[in-house]
């Protein structure tokens, strides 16, 4: 009895895997980050850079304020370039800047901030880059302007004077 059932189970398993592979072929394997605006921010949990305390996205973006989430890393050279603009924006009272430390080494990141000063009100960690993927980020640096838990503007690449001007316009 046992011997007769084995062939059927094995055959069935292979048929199932055939179907999966067949379907998988049609799915594109090229990952295209989503590009939607006015979209709700994804929910995630992570740890704080300074204290290593667990925190989730609802706690980070809880206030009735504008937030700028900036994806950065100490190994990323354009991040150095845009840092002065972040420092400028950090003076705005209506805006809180959140840093997402992307695939970075904590020691190097601390060195980076000591050297260039810290514009962030909170820094959260993304050691393996998963949060950045959920946000639909293409790379570093990238910034998201957020209000009421939805993304108002997505900035790909480093900030510059024009963008700072535009952000200032949006948050007034």
């Amino acid at each position: 009895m046992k011997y007769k059932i084995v062939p059927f189970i094995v055959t069935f398993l292979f048929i199932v895997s055939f179907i999966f592979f067949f379907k998988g072929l049609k799915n594109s394997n090229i990952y295209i980050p989503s590009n939607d605006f006015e979209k709700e921010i994804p929910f995630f949990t992570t740890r704080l850079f300074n204290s290593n305390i667990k925190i989730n996205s609802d706690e980070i973006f809880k206030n009735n304020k504008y937030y700028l989430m900036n994806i950065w890393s100490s190994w990323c050279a354009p991040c150095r370039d845009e840092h002065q603009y972040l420092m400028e924006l950090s003076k705005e009272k209506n805006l809180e800047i959140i840093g997402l430390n992307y695939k970075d080494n904590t020691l190097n990141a601390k060195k980076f901030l000591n050297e260039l000063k810290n514009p962030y009100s909170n820094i959260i960690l993304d050691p393996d880059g998963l949060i950045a993927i959920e946000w639909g980020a293409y790379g570093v640096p990238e910034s998201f302007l957020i209000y009421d838990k939805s993304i108002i503007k997505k900035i790909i690449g480093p900030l510059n004077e024009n963008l700072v001007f535009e952000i200032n316009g949006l948050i007034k």
Partner: protein
Amino acid sequence: MSSIIGFYSLVLSSSLSFLIIFFSIKNFRNSKTLDKRIISLSFLQFFLVLISFLGLIISFINSDFSNETVFNHSHTTKPLFYKISGTWGNHEGSLLLWLLVLTLFIFLFIIKSRQQSTQYRILTLLFQQVIIIGFFVFLLKTSSPFNYIFPVPEEGLGLNPILQDPALAIHPPILYLGYVGSSIIFSSALSAVSLNYITKEWASHIKQWVLLSWIFLTLGILLGSIWAYYELGWGGFWFWDPVENVSLMPWLALTTLIHCILVLEKRLILTSWVVVLSISTFTLSMCGTFLVRSGILNSVHTFANDPERGLFILIFLFTLIFLSLFIFFFFHKKNNKIDNSIFLFSKETSIIINNWFMMYFLSVILIGTVYPIFLDVISSQKISVGPPFYNKLIIPFLIPFLFAMTIGPKLKWIKSDIKDKIYLFLFFLISLFISILIVKNLKINFLLNTILITFSFYLFFITLRDFFIRKNKNLSQIIAHFGFSLFILSILFNNIFTTEIITNLKVGESFVSEKINIKFENLSQTQKQNYKSFIGKFTIENDKGNLEIMEPELRIYNQPNITTSEADIKTNLLSDRFITMNIVQSQDYFNIRYQIKPFMIWIWLSVLLITTGGFLRLTKKI
């Protein structure tokens, strides 16, 4: 011109398959001796594929851009060596190489298997022809290497620079010898099952093919790994990348098969194991081909994302799977007359234990590779399974595995008892003592690492002792197992003692720490045949005051326009020093990665030792 000859030679060769099948079936009915025409036709088929392959090589050498494959993958400024290796550095050419090896191997099989029964030889040939026809159709229908383009382009698109590396030039042919060798095992096992021909003689005959494929597969994987270490510039040698996994899976199945064949040869038990493993080795190779060629996974090996190709291999793969399932379930009979009994303390038991562990490792890798694809289909979630998954699931189970590997060969066939084995215990204590000494001062997981190192040392010492005491008795096994213990030890020490420094430096700046001092001396620029080269000069001073000059390189290739980073690696018997330099955009800073990797060279050497073990067994006349 050479392309046209190549194309027609290929078409002619494919039609020969039908002739061979026709004569084989005729011969199969009244089979006393093998029809000489079958041998000649098999040779002719191989010869025609060879001409076709040479035709493609000549097109590559002459940079004949009227050929689409040459246009897509070559360039006039490329060095001759890489023009030739570019022939199989792409999807179409590599399939032609597959076919070349397939036809060569079946010809060799036919002339090397004279002692076997004619029916068995013909049936194996028939199964092999099914595979060969599948590849011919695939090649001619979806990926012909001889497509013509008009108007003829002036210049080709070039070969991906990271593929322009000597290790990678010979990696595919060697790996294919292994894969294709497993197809012979597959056909042979199917025909042996159908004819109820599984005997001790069959086992010692097919063992040669198993060993041959295993040697090539091992060397192929080793070359790929060496390439990744030297060329990709990440300082690792194994990344648990899906593409690496699909070459490791057939290897695990094949290694298990070698052990089972040895049992079968002696005692005619484990026949089901042998048949299932023979089938799965080749289907896993094909599955790997499917995964990397269909574009379902993304990697360097994904030559082109063409769903039609993927669909073809998928259907072909599952045809082979269902064919072999059918044959296995309907024809395979367990021979009950033979004494099946297995005692607890015997070689057989330890080999079965070995099998189950191997199957466990194989399933972990299979799940890690395939699960993301399945999950994507079910829930459109993208996940990536990385090293932590494999490390957590595999490393702890290495401990009993290593133990079985040490004790197993000590036991006798059928039944053995434990007498005069005090030295086994003694060696264990020595190993334990050494590993405690090593692990004690390190900030790592004490228990797991101590046990792991203990058992590796245990295998190391026991095999070393055997090497000197039992002279020449099963030398191949001793060398292979010794190689494995060395392999695990080198990987462990490499992982535990690697130090890494990552920093950004400008010319003239230095990185200073307690242990090391890295100074960026200068940067020189030269123009080479098909790339521009930037060589940085670094002086590295360690805490003992030894100076070393290292020169990592950045290459900016002209066609296609890609920047690659060539690591500078200084090797000696104790450690590798590894430095890479990367551009930090729009600044004069360079990102510098410096690593000290102990016992790196022993990883390669130990794999070579393992292969030597297999090679010794192959050359040994029994």
